[in-house]
């Protein structure tokens, strides 16, 4: 056994990073401690609470249960990458408008899990939203406002998509 370092190259929020890491370094620690992206949180550290949820190669995953070396060659998106202070992502807008949080600790993970959910199912029913939230734990809100925030986000995203479609149609000379 040795603490041999392994070279990895990962695109995080659109920026390519390379680093030499120990094989046992968890992806969440790579993001937080090496890249200083502390929006991704460590809650339970046992694959249950979902506070560490990020997108890895387009899928929502719990970054406390992935090794950094497993993300080598891949693409990661964290909560820092989804919107900016000037232009919030529709999911962030939904959580802002409907106050889908209380203490805020779980919120980044919940929003990333929402991204995973809405990607699979852009217009979920309330039941589907509740099932989709199975992988995150919030100890404050009782989930009610989170569900409202996700419904709001889903609506914003589908309206934005419809707007884009109409624009494309007009640009293409449609009526």
């Amino acid at each position: 056994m040795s603490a041999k370092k392994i070279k990895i190259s990962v695109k995080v929020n659109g920026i390519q990073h390379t680093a030499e890491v120990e094989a046992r370094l968890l992806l969440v620690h790579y993001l937080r401690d090496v890249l200083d992206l502390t929006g991704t949180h460590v809650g339970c550290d046992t694959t249950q609470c979902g506070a560490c949820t990020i997108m890895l190669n387009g899928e929502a995953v719990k970054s406390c249960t992935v090794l950094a070396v497993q993300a080598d060659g891949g693409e990661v998106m964290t909560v820092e990458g989804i919107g900016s202070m000037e232009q919030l992502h529709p999911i962030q807008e939904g959580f802002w408008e409907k106050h889908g949080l209380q203490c805020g600790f779980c919120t980044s993970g919940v929003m990333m899990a929402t991204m995973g959910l809405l990607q699979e199912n852009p217009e979920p029913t309330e039941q589907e939203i509740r099932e989709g939230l199975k992988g995150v734990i919030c100890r404050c809100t009782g989930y009610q406002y989170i569900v409202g925030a996700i419904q709001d986000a889903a609506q914003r995203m589908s309206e934005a998509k419809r707007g884009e479609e109409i624009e494309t149609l007009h640009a293409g000379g449609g009526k």
Partner: protein
Amino acid sequence: MIPSTFDYVRAETVEDAIKLLVESEGEGKLLAGGHSLLPLMKFRLTSPGTLIDINHISDLQGVQLKDERLVVGALTTHRDIIKDQLVQEHIPVLAQTARQIGDIQVRSRGTVGGNIAHADPAADLPGVALALEAEIELQDEDGKQRVSADGFFFGPLLTALPETSVLTAVSFLIPPMHAKSVYVKYEHPASGYAVVGVCAIAGKNASGKVDFIRVGINGVSDVAYRASAVEEALLGKAVTEENIRKAALLATKDAEMSGDMFASAEYRSHLCSIYTERALKQVLL
């Protein structure tokens, strides 16, 4: 929590992985989705000297239709299963079960091969694998072999998988056209694991008698099992609520119920019959 130090190597082919397993002299472990192995390593319940990452072996991905069976590559994730066209068309119960495993994030990473190889008695796939007469495909230095699910699961986290073999695929029987199938589960409210999970696949003939039945159960005992007593009690019998109820009472006959802080053996035994009855009613009535 951080695992203890280990060496990390990537296998590019199945042969490569086997060679690395042999060379590691019992210290090596295969890493697929890592959703069973990494939590154990973080708790330091296991500390392999070498992790052999098999995620880059493309032969282990995907679902194929072969000889009336669906062959699911070991690296196929639960998310892949839910979305797979062949699964939806031929064995929808596999997708219906996958949808009940963990949560969205876990299903993105967890694999079919990993789930079966890990053999957690409260996992959802073993019971379904037994009901679908699964064959576990293994490969080692001497070649390939198949082990039926019946002879694969020995006990909690114990299987017939030899230390230097790679589980390459799991093939599932496509049930007869007229049979319906379902997986029903009472899950632990915190962990989501099955306290009881019952997979029932059954069909009846033109005169309303059961002519095909398979029941696989996980969660209630140390190891998933086929509920043969239930199958025997119903095969050839008329489909009536009374016959189903009587047969479901035999659901615990082929296993010893386990008890823990959450559910006593007595409670599990009760749930086991109830859920078996529900599953049978869904597919037969």
